[in-house]
């Protein structure tokens, strides 16, 4: 859920009871105020009638009045000190419904006589008025509420805009091109602080990353000279005619170990160079001729293992890739498919416009897809101890830097590697 939605929901949750309570309070308040008015009117009317009975009826004739809203008659009952005010409902014959009324009743002294007086006033109109006022107030409140939410939304959007811009840039951040990470200046202190912190962090990471990349490349370079010296000294040593065969053996073993170290170094150097974007490419290249080239180069190894190679070409597989890296990619993939294959095994190659699949049989069972592309990951029980565990990492590195997806799966005894072009 977005921040703005969350705040809006909280706002709504807080406002709804406040508004409901407010509305109710208004209604009760108006109702009370109006009733008070009615009561005052009733008392006023009563006083008029009392005056009338005293002054306008001097002969002291008995006066009686029976109407739906006023009742006046002589009564022997004792006097009431105060008027009695109460709510009641009266059946309306014409409308066939009960209407609310307020009534005042009192036994009053008029001369020597006692009169019972009852005055009623309909509350219907007053109630309607109260309801109307409450309704209007309600609408005003709701409008204010809506406008507030809308304003809140707009202001929020505007205030958070720089934050979302920062977030957008962070998401697109790529360590390879971290140089372009430059955050906008901002007038809000919190965001300004955030941007400053991020800028600082980014430049630090960038510096470290660059240093690390350069270090890897430099280290790999520097290692080549001592490796050469050791390799060549051993080769010279081997030529000593005095050497016994038992002495030759450890020298050759050392030489082979050095050779492995050298290949490891070459692979690391290659990866560092790919990381340092030293292999630029602009033109789209068809991978099929590269495949053909390596199938030819590897032909002897294929024949040696009596491998069957099944090729399916739906279309040319096109990639924007440096020709050297294309060579590396294909020679690694095909080399693996041959190296780990079984005698009389099978290799299947399929190319489409945007994908390539290379399948091979193997002594190995399924490899953990999570570990397969990790550096130095080895699959233990293969007889040849010369693999350095970097071949697939190099393939992964190349696919990663070329926006290609690399998938591994194990189906029906076949190791399957699929390269999919994300944006053909």
């Amino acid at each position: 859920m977005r921040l703005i939605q969350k705040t809006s929901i909280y706002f709504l949750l807080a406002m709804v009871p406040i508004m409901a309570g407010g509305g109710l309070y208004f209604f009760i308040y108006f109702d009370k105020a109006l009733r008070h008015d009615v009561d005052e009117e009733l008392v006023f009317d009563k006083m008029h009638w009392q005056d009338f009975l005293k002054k306008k009826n001097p002969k002291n004739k008995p006066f009686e009045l029976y109407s739906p809203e006023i009742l006046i008659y002589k009564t022997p009952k004792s006097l009431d000190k105060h008027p009695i005010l109460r709510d009641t409902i009266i059946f309306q014959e014409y409308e066939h419904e009960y209407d609310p009324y307020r009534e005042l009743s009192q036994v009053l002294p008029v001369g020597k006589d006692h009169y019972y007086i009852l005055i009623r006033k309909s509350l219907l109109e007053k109630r309607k008025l109260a309801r109307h006022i409450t309704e209007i107030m309600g609408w005003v409140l709701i409008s204010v509420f809506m406008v507030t939410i809308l304003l809140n939304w707009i202001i929020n959007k505007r205030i958070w805009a720089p934050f979302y811009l920062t977030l957008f840039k962070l998401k697109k951040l790529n360590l390879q091109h971290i140089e372009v990470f430059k955050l906008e200046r901002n007038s809000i202190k919190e965001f300004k602080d955030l941007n400053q912190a991020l800028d600082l962090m980014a430049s630090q990471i960038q510096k470290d990353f660059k240093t690390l990349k350069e270090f890897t490349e430099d280290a790999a370079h520097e290692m080549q000279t001592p490796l050469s010296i050791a390799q060549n000294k051993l080769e010279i040593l081997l030529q000593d005619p005095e050497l016994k065969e038992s002495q030759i053996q450890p020298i050759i073993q050392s030489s082979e170990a050095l050779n492995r170290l050298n290949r490891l170094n070459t692979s690391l150097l290659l990866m560092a160079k790919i990381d340092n974007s030293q292999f630029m490419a602009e033109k789209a290249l068809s991978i099929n001729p590269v495949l053909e080239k390596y199938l030819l180069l590897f032909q002897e190894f294929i024949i040696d293992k009596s491998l069957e190679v099944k090729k399916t070409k739906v279309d040319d597989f096109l990639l924007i890739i440096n020709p050297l890296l294309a060579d590396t990619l294909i020679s690694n993939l095909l080399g693996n498919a041959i190296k780990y294959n079984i005698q009389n095994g099978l290799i299947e190659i399929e190319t489409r416009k945007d994908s390539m699949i290379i399948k091979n049989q193997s002594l190995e069972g399924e490899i953990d897809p999570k570990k397969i592309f990790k550096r130095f990951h080895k699959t233990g029980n293969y007889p040849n101890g010369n693999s350095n565990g970097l071949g697939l990492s190099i393939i992964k590195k190349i696919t990663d830097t070329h926006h290609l997806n690399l998938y591994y799966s194990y189906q029906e005894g076949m190791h399957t590697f699929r390269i999919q072009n994300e944006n053909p």
Partner: protein
Amino acid sequence: MKILIVEDELDLQESIREYLTMQGYLVETASNFQQGLYKISSHIYQCILLDIGLPEGNGLELLKTVKETKSNAGVIILSAKNSIEDRVKGLELGADDYVSKPFHLSELNARIFALLRRKTSDGEPFLQFGEIKLSQKQKRVFVHENPIELTEKEFTLLEYFIINKGLVLTKVAIAEHGWGDEFDQVDNYDFIYTHIKNLRKKLIQAGSEDYIRTIYGMGYRFTA
């Protein structure tokens, strides 16, 4: 045959000198740009091994000088940077070959041999070892003057053996010479064994002596 090694790493320089001396070459050395410049302009060499990563002044400058003096020397670049740009630039400037460090001395020896063969066209047309005669131009092999049928790889292996005769060759060096970078990917040493076994059989069948000595399956020596 005079060879000049221009290499600032003295240990490396010494190994190369020793190995090539064993092969019967006359070897001189230079450890920096100045020495290299002096020797190139005052002596005649058939082959110059040039490290292009010299500390003071790029080795490529020396290469230009060699070409300007109209020397007939073949130049092999030794480089720690296995970078394509260096290789292309070196070959554009007129270098004859390019070897990236680390290299096997036997491989360097084979490259020098091939280079000298190309440069001195008046040399012997055959590479000979006892009763075995190898014509590099025709890619054919004769034992006791009788031609024998060898595969391309077998020919390459025999040629490599004869060039590095008497020396112990590791199977890694042999593999890299015969199959190049591709071998890295496939990594199958049994494969060499099969090829050498076949070569040996063919040579013996043709009446040659068995010159290929195996060292515990780790290397080979071609020797009388």
